[in-house]
């Protein structure tokens, strides 16, 4: 019987496999940031252990860093101490660190791919659940806790139970104005926040093959929101084209050797997935969330659901609680929901294509007076690229705030946060209670929907702007 992509990558990394124990897997790349690493470095120090492969370990500052005044000391003393602790740790253990102000600084899941460090067939881990992003390259990539961070630092391996595999087959073509963000939100709504538990997801089919690498990263990024630790897409010409000549990609003869190996990383025709879900891309429309978990989403044209629509009593209770927290009335059109803030950024949608597509909507238009819009590029390089293309001007002329790179309002660890009761349309990945600031309310949306929402002040798609005045 043939093998799936996930099984192939898994088997290539098994260091040890024995009965009655998990497999011991080798880790090709360990990404590190300031929040989940200090206790791991402490553990190494306490036990007198070394970091085994500093050359396979890369660190960046992202979760905690401010997005304004980055040339000044970090104002919050607790954040400052955490960042300072990482700088000391990286120096002591010989880890390459891209600090605030460095051209390579940014969200760890934006930086790895843009440097060419993320490559097909690798195992990639990080103390961050959105490590699943890197699966877009055909890598097996997943988030780990701090104890596992320490384990990888000490041994460059992890003990893991072999996951089941699930195919998410997306047939057809995404219609104009429908993005990979809409697609993944629809997938999560379909399979639920626990649907992917115990599985590695493989996204495949015509609609996936047509996507750019950045769009693929958005999809794999949110696999964790469906409960799956990892999501993967088989590498193809789009992948190789993206990687070629990136600073950390193989060069010369090694490039040819690598591409040959990467071409074998496809699911065999006779391979069997443990589960398969089929989605028709042609039927999709812009998708937004109305509740407090990423599975609580609907097409933008729908209405806020009623608890009575749900048969399962515990789900009904959940919906009641979500609607109460979100302060929404059943039956209200989603388009009538007004927002105070629009956040464009994060490891889900903070890449250059995301900024371009939002800028295309905003060009010649203005952000509604009632709305503040934050644009936070995913990395310092994305910011530079946006400057080259004049996107910063488009955002600023529209009245949005143009910031420096970091996780920012996605999880509100830095000063960028919602105030209690404030409502946001956000291109990030989690609409949990208080995620973007205590008492804040989040609707997850695509970059295009974010931009159109910023202009109109209520949840909207770019198509709703037709007929709106565009200044010359």
């Amino acid at each position: 019987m043939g093998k799936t992509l996930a099984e192939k990558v898994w088997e290539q990394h098994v260091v040890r496999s024995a009965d009655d124990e998990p497999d011991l897997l080798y880790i090709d790349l360990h990404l590190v940031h300031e929040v989940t690493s200090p206790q791991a470095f402490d553990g190494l120090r306490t036990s007198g252990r070394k970091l085994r492969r500093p050359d396979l370990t890369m660190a960046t500052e992202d979760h905690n860093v401010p997005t304004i005044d980055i040339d000044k000391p970090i104002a919050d003393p607790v954040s400052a101490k955490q960042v300072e602790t990482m700088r000391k740790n990286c120096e002591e253990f010989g880890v390459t660190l891209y600090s605030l102000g460095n051209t390579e600084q940014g969200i760890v899941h934006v930086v790895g791919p843009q440097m060419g460090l993320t490559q097909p067939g690798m195992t990639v881990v990080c103390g961050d659940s959105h490590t699943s992003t890197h699966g877009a390259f055909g890598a097996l990539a997943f988030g780990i806790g701090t104890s596992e961070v320490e384990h990888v630092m000490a041994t460059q391996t992890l003990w893991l139970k072999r996951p089941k595999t699930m195919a998410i087959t997306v047939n057809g073509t995404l219609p104009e104005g429908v993005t990979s963000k809409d697609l993944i939100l629809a997938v999560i709504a379909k399979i639920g926040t626990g649907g992917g538990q115990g599985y590695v997801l493989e996204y495949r089919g015509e609609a996936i093959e047509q996507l750019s690498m950045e769009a693929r990263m958005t999809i794999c990024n949110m696999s964790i929101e469906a409960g799956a630790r990892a999501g993967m897409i088989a590498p193809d010409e789009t992948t190789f084209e993206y990687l070629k000549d990136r600073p950390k990609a193989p060069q010369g003869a090694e490039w040819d050797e690598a591409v040959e190996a990467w071409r074998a990383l496809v699911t065999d025709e006779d391979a069997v997935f443990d589960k398969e879900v089929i989605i028709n891309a042609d039927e999709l429309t812009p998708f937004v969330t109305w509740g407090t978990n990423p599975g609580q989403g609907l097409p933008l044209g729908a209405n806020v659901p009623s608890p009575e629509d749900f048969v399962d009593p515990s789900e009904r209770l959940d919906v009641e609680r979500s609607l109460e927290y979100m302060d929404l009335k059943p039956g209200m059109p989603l388009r009538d929901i007004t927002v105070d803030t629009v956040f464009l950024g994060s490891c889900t949608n903070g890449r250059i294509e995301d900024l371009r597509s939002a800028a295309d909507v905003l060009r010649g238009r203005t952000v509604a007076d009632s709305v503040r819009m934050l644009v936070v590029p995913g990395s310092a390089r994305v910011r530079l690229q946006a400057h080259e293309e004049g996107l910063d001007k488009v955002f600023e002329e529209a009245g949005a705030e143009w910031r420096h790179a970091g996780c920012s309002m996605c999880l509100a660890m830095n000063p960028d946060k919602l105030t209690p009761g404030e409502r946001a349309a956000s291109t990030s990945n989690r609409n949990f209670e208080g995620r973007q600031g205590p008492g804040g309310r989040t609707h997850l949306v695509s970059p295009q929907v974010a931009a159109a929402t910023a202009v109109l002040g209520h949840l909207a798609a770019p198509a709703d702007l037709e007929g709106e005045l565009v200044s010359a």
Partner: protein
Amino acid sequence: MEKFTTHSGVAAPLRRSNVDTDQIIPASYLKRVTRHGYEDALFSAWRKEDDFVLNQEPYKNATVLVAGPEFGTGSSREHAVWALSDYGFRAVISSSFADIFRGNSAKDGLVAAVVDQQVIESIWDYLDANPGAEVEVDLENQKITAGAIVEPFEIDPYVRWRLLEGLDEIGITERVQDEIDTYERARPAFKPVV
């Protein structure tokens, strides 16, 4: 890590599903660089609500949490496990746990016991009728006892073994160091370095 064999303690019914890591511990508490001292952070938003279960007198000293499905969904923060442990919890019982949370709990000696949702419902009913009652989590025999309810629970056999023995995982791995060396020597040369 402390060995876990059997634990009996006051059980708190948390009648919510999708209890995500941002509810267990909000990101603002993750700025600390220590591994302990997160008891104040546990469910910090919900603990401001008077009717939250841990604010009810019988449950203030709860050490067993009985929660709805998809417990620990969301982020990879092990702080979620540390906050539960620091508060005093030794075990969480649910019909399903997020994969990363479940992995993390095993590293810190917190038992994540899986039973059917029907069993959860019956334990909830038992606790509502007997507030402050103790529930026993017997890892050795893999069963939960709540009054007359005696049910087996699921846990990965390897995780169970490590918890029973209280073993340090890095120590285990270092015993197979030579196998890691062998694998490492055969890695393709085109694999990137930082």
